[in-house]
């Protein structure tokens, strides 16, 4: 295997003439800010998405810290109830619509074409438009800070969000934001669907599609279904508020409950929109750093589809305490239970992927493993919430706040940080510092659990959600103080991560095309890739094309290409 081969006797594959393109003039890649605002390059758009998301993530985080400061001690009057409700609304809205949904649009924009061996997405200009709509949606929401921010919560239940009870125009800013970012996501999703269906490299059948791309495909389908519905729903609210309709007005024959059904019909798939791409990240990161193939590729891909389908059938488990007949309650309990099966299958497959591997403790892997462990807890508290009689005690309490942060932060945002550490070398050409990254990880992981684990207890002892203050005789003071301390640890962890990004962009070790010896096609090209992505797109023969290519190069040149664990360890 290691015999050196003379250049003349290089196997047949080298002698096949490559098609040649003769360029009469090569325009240099444009730089400067004009190149960014006029770009239709999926990589530049992806980076703009990610920077915008990073800024919104920090804004949403500061809002969360302000709320935690207010709740840190009982009877606090740091924030007025009005300010608290505004911060709560902005925090939820920002984190959902401006962070965890678009962050995957950002990563996928950059990565999906590279991972499937395409030169760009199917509709590059539409793609640019999606980004700008997203940005302006966020700006529309935040401009309301100068007037009257919305204060009816990210779910904006009617009648509270109707004209009679929220007279200010902040609610319109919220609706406008949902429209702009919603259409951005829908158009982006259509783009991903068209790209993934039509532009895969030769040989990349559905059984060889990287699992992150599988997740993004399903994410895209869910967005088309769920966010279209949400767009219609908020339009009804807009009409109710401004044009005299009464869809949700109980005093004129409308139904206040209709909003909840329509909203959660989008809102629950939204949860999977947040978390399925994170699952895709785990499925990419674990095999690379365990140096093992993913365990049960087909089961993981199929369970993604299963979760998405079932995710469309569970929305009313967010509203078990509204007037509902037992039959309906039972249906939504059962459908919520059933969704636990494909989710459990995924978790066990990931553990089996680690099993008997040789695991390298890179920061990307740490975040993925931490996310799986944390998500497991969120999944198990989800079982309690799915049992509707138990949910009557737990819903709208801090138990739910804890539960969904375990999924939305513990799985989705940890997945986002894992993706950052894993793909940053590809995007920037430089490595993030592993040392700083591990310190940041420690703060994020410990801070997260200190913040949210204790909130289960607060909820079980009767603390409702969305209250701006509580009295000292409620017995919730200690829980809240602990939670507030944890939230600042988490904040420090995020800050360390941001510092790591900023310093590594300039001073990080140069990454080279394939620093991790990874499995998928994005590592075939340079880091960062040229505007056209690939000079030659290789033919795909398995789900791990880079492994095949390394093996082939090894056979042809005799130079060891495969991953050597000892070397990697000394680097780390």
């Amino acid at each position, binding site marked *: 295997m290691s015999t050196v081969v003379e250049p003349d006797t290089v196997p047949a594959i080298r002698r096949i003439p490559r098609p040649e393109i003769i360029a009469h003039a090569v325009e240099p890649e444009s730089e400067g800010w004009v190149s960014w605002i006029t770009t239709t390059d999926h990589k530049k758009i992806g980076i703009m998405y990610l920077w915008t998301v990073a800024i919104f993530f920090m804004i949403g985080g500061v809002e969360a810290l302000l709320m935690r400061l207010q709740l840190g001690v009982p009877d606090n009057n740091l924030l007025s*109830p009005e300010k608290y409700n505004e911060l709560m609304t902005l925090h939820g809205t920002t984190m959902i619509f401006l962070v965890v949904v678009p962050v995957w649009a950002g990563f996928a924009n950059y990565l999906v074409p590279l991972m499937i061996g395409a030169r760009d997405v199917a509709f590059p200009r539409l793609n640019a438009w999606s980004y700008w709509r997203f940005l302006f949606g966020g700006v529309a929401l935040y401009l309301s800070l100068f007037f009257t921010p919305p204060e009816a919560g990210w779910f904006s239940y009617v009648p509270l969000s109707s004209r009679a009870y929220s007279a200010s125009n902040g609610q319109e800013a919220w609706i406008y934001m949902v429209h702009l970012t919603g259409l951005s996501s829908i158009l982006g999703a259509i783009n991903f669907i068209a790209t993934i269906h039509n532009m895969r490299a030769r040989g990349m059948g559905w059984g060889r599609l990287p699992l992150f791309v599988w997740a993004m495909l399903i994410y895209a389908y869910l967005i088309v279904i769920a966010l279209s519905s949400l767009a219609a729903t908020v339009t009804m609210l807009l009409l109710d508020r401004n044009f005299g309709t009464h869809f949700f007005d109980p005093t004129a024959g409308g139904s206040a409950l209709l909003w909840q059904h329509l909203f959660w019909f989008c809102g629950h798939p939204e949860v999977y929109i947040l978390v399925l791409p994170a699952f895709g990240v785990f499925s990419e990161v674990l095999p690379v750093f365990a140096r093992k193939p993913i365990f049960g590729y087909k089961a993981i891909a199929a369970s993604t589809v299963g979760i998405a389908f079932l995710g469309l059938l569970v929305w009313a488990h967010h509203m078990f305490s509204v*007037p509902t007949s037992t039959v309906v309650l039972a249906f939504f309990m059962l459908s919520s239970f059933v969704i636990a099966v494909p989710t459990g299958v995924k978790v066990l497959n990931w553990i089996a992927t680690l099993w008997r591997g040789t695991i390298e403790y890179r920061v990307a892997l740490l975040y993925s493993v931490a996310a799986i462990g944390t998500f497991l807890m969120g999944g198990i508290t989800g079982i309690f919430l799915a049992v509707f009689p138990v949910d009557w005690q737990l819903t709208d309490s801090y138990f739910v706040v804890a539960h969904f942060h375990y999924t939305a932060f513990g799985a989705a945002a940890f997945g986002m940080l894992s993706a950052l550490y894993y793909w940053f070398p590809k995007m920037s050409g430089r490595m993030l510092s592993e040392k700083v990254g591990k310190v940041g990880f420690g703060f994020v992981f410990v801070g997260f659990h200190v913040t949210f684990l204790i909130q289960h207890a607060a909820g079980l*002892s009767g603390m409702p959600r969305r209250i701006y203050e509580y009295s000292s005789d409620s*017995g919730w003071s200690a829980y809240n103080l602990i939670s507030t301390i944890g939230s600042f640890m988490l904040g420090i962890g995020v800050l360390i991560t941001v510092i790591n990004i900023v310093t590594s962009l300039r001073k990080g070790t140069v990454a080279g095309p394939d620093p991790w010896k990874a499995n998928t096609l994005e590592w075939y090209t340079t880091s960062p890739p040229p505007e056209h992505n690939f000079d030659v797109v290789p033919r795909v023969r398995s789900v791990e094309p880079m492994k095949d290519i390394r093996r082939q190069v090894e056979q042809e040149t005799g130079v060891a290409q495969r991953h050597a664990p000892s070397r990697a360890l000394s680097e780390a």
Partner: protein
Amino acid sequence: MGASLVLAGSAFAGAFVPESGGSPNADRIATLYKLIAILALIVFAAVEGALVWAFFKFKAKKGAVAAQIHGNTRLEIGWTVGAAAILVFLVVVTFVELPAIKDPPATGRNGLQFASQAIYASTDQPTPPDGKALKIVVDGQQYVWRYQYPGKEGVFSYTEMVVPSDTTVVLDITADDVNHSWWIPKLGGKMDAIPGYTNHTWFKARPGTYRGQCAELCGRNHANMLAQVRVVSPDAYQRWYDGQAARIKQARTQQQQNRPKYDTAGVGG
């Protein structure tokens, strides 16, 4: 800060299980919660344990070679079926416990003795076995709870509900303005109060005072929309009821007497 942490010791009592002890439905919910918790803890320990063990045990070492395994169909079918079996068990447990949580029981021997049957219609909450219950209409308003008691005297109260002990109290819950949610943790789960709809729940409480507060965001003072249920003996309830009726009557009379003054005073008078 230190003082709050010391205080935590006593506060941790209700930290692991939902509040209970006031009414049988709250107790049954706590029981159901514990049953699920036992199963959940086993699953959690097994899966989280496997994850943590794999993570530390299979750390890359010099000379270690990763096993190139792509999957194991039997194993995968096995854990899919296993997960489904656990859920079937949970469904069975839930439906065994459900009637005791959802259906109001009969009033006890020490409870209020009803002269006639208080008949009420409801699609999804069956009547108590003897058809008798004290029905109170709970009405959520920004930011106060109003309770309407049965009887032609039209007795009502705000914030504090007074009820007889060992008596089945059924609640018709609605709201006047925005959504609210009725929640007294020790007396059972929440029921949302939604304008245009009537929601139902019940409790049969032991004597004592039970506190709760609105659990659905209802505006700026959501945090201050408190509720309290004072459970007293049937005799004491009857005395309170008569007293409240008299107070309301007196207030109405006073209002009637004062009205002419307002009427003749005119605007700005």
